[in-house]
């Protein structure tokens, strides 16, 4: 399914422009709650998800707008979810941190760090027990690797040889805590390899490098039937959430990483290779911007759920013997 660089570029730009608008809408108080932006990390979701088939499953975190968009979930449904509208991808119940979409096998949207990992193992177990050859891709930050659920999950996946692709999005900060201040071993692939899981790291700022690493990782999961661990070295350009004053990172560090902006790297390469000129890039940007405009218009025009339905969906209503 490998898309070419222009379309990978376009996917990244869709995420970037969507989230930039989310930040504005948050400041304008159209969106509330916690909003965790993926800006700077777009190459990771785009590079990996491009290598999955529609049959494969995705488990993501609370920083998952990019994964949802890369998976092909309609932007207006994602934006409507940010607004809490019934037209939202989770019917407004979840908000920014809890995007779900059954037809895409998109299992959230988990806002407990490492909470999605056991679920990914279980999805893969169900595939194994029902003889389905599918991959479950599980995204999490490096902060999750300090949680017991990471260790329990990767051990189970390795022990039972389950087809899980563990994708660690190492953006170097677990909220405000730097990797070296939270992990005794900062080489994360080494940690994962202790579970007898093939593990390696890749450049999460370069969408082509990311795509190639994901191609190899997904193929290995499919061929071996067992788990693979991929560390994507990346960086978030924005604060942890819209609440975060970002006092724990040096401005120089952020600037250094911004020089490796995945979107700039891709656009420079497109021009260098003669695949696109500035005019074509501008046309994509205009196109993406109008998609965002339309998504905002749809969300603005959306409807709020009736309070009478507050308790709907808590349970399915039980069963009789």
């Amino acid at each position, binding site marked *: 399914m490998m898309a070419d660089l222009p379309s990978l570029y376009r996917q990244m730009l869709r995420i970037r422009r969507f989230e930039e608008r989310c930040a504005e809408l948050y400041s304008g108080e159209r969106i509330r709650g916690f909003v965790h932006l993926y800006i700077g990390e777009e190459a990771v979701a785009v590079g990996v998800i491009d290598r999955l088939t529609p049959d494969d499953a995705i488990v993501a975190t609370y920083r998952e707008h990019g994964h949802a968009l890369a998976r092909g979930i309609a932007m207006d449904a994602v934006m409507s979810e940010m607004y809490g509208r019934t037209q939202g991808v*989770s019917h407004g119940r979840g908000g920014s941190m809890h995007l779900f979409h059954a037809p895409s096998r998109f299992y959230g949207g988990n806002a407990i760090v490492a909470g999605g990992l056991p679920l*990914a*193992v279980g999805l893969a177990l*169900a595939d194994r027990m029902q003889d389905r050859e599918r991959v*479950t891709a599980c995204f999490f930050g490096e902060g999750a690797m300090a949680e017991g659920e990471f260790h329990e*999950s990767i051990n189970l996946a390795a022990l039972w040889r389950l087809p899980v692709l563990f994708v660690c999005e190492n953006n170097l900060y677990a909220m405000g805590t730097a990797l070296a201040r939270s992990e005794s071993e900062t080489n994360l692939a080494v940690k994962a390899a202790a579970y007898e899981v093939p593990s390696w790291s890749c450049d999460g700022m370069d969408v082509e490098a990311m795509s190639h690493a994901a191609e190899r990782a997904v193929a290995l999961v499919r061929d071996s039937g067992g788990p693979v661990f991929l560390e994507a070295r990346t960086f978030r350009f924005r604060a942890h959430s819209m609440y975060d004053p970002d006092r724990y990172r040096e401005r120089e560090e952020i600037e250094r990483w911004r020089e490796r902006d995945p979107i700039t790297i891709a656009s420079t390469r497109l021009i260098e290779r003669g695949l696109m000129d500035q005019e074509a890039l501008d046309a994509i940007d205009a196109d993406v911007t109008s998609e965002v405009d339309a998504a905002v218009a749809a969300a603005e025009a959306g409807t709020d759920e009736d309070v009478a339905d507050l308790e709907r969906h808590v349970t399915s209503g039980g069963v*009789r013997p």
Partner: protein
Amino acid sequence: MTVMPDVQVLSFRDAVREGIRDAMRRDERVFLMGEDVGRYGGGFGVSLGLLEEFGEERVRDTPLSESGFVGAGIGAALGGMRPIVEIMTVNFSLLALDQILNTAATLRHMSGGQFNVPLVIRMTTGAGRQLAAQHSHSLEGFYAHIPGLRVVSPATVEDGFGMLATALEDPDPVVIFEHGSLYNEKGELPQPAAPVDIDFARVRRGGDDLTLITHGGSLRLCLTAADQLAADGISAEVIDLRTLRPLDDQTVMASVARTHRAVVVDEGWRSVGMSAEVAARVAEECFYDLDAPVGRVASVEVPIPYPRHLEQAALPSVERVVAAAERAVGRRG
């Protein structure tokens, strides 16, 4: 010609095992997973022999990773399986509380109804075996607090067998509490053994003077207390709640409206527990029918101690139930 007996007498442990066996024979999607459920035969011997019949894929020993394997159960349920996850004791279930509360109970609502979790979790609960402070608690009230879960507490052999099949049909997560003192208890299983509802409380003994409301491991002592009260001329009705979430208010209130007196008996701690919830509901819904304050018999608020005399002093007992009943009917000050 042999006549088939219409009841089979077996232990609660055997009844639960037969329930699991029956479910696994009927439905390929059902499998059992947990610590020592396979080769060991289950921490309390419930799954003895199932590995030999169903194999390692379907009777799956797990590492000591409660959060990991409960979460894997959630994922497997989402993936079309019907997992039965055994957690050795309720105390260990706290290691999986994130998965149970933040994912299993939440997913359906949080996803706008897209993902329901047909998972069954079984765990042992309760004290009485001198297992001290980390193996003896009754945390049913913790779980019954959580919207999105169904919580059941079988007290009889029939429910030990029959609740599981119905729980497996439920599209949502069901937590089954098995009181450790019940496993060796024998009882009658009507034949052919069949699934039972997991919605309604049941009147286990009829009576007119007061209603004893209980569940799980405390049912026996309430029935014994009712015998003693009867000898003293007090007619106690005994209600087995069976399902702790959602509570069957109707059965409880219908009884209390008739007897005008209620005592709630629960092995959990008194404060903020099952007994508090039931007593509050009786007060809300039956206030004008009551002839006496709602009584409660619950565990004393201590981590359960090891020595037998102290453990017994901490737990509901026949004597305490009788005393509470006598207070309710005005025989004691």
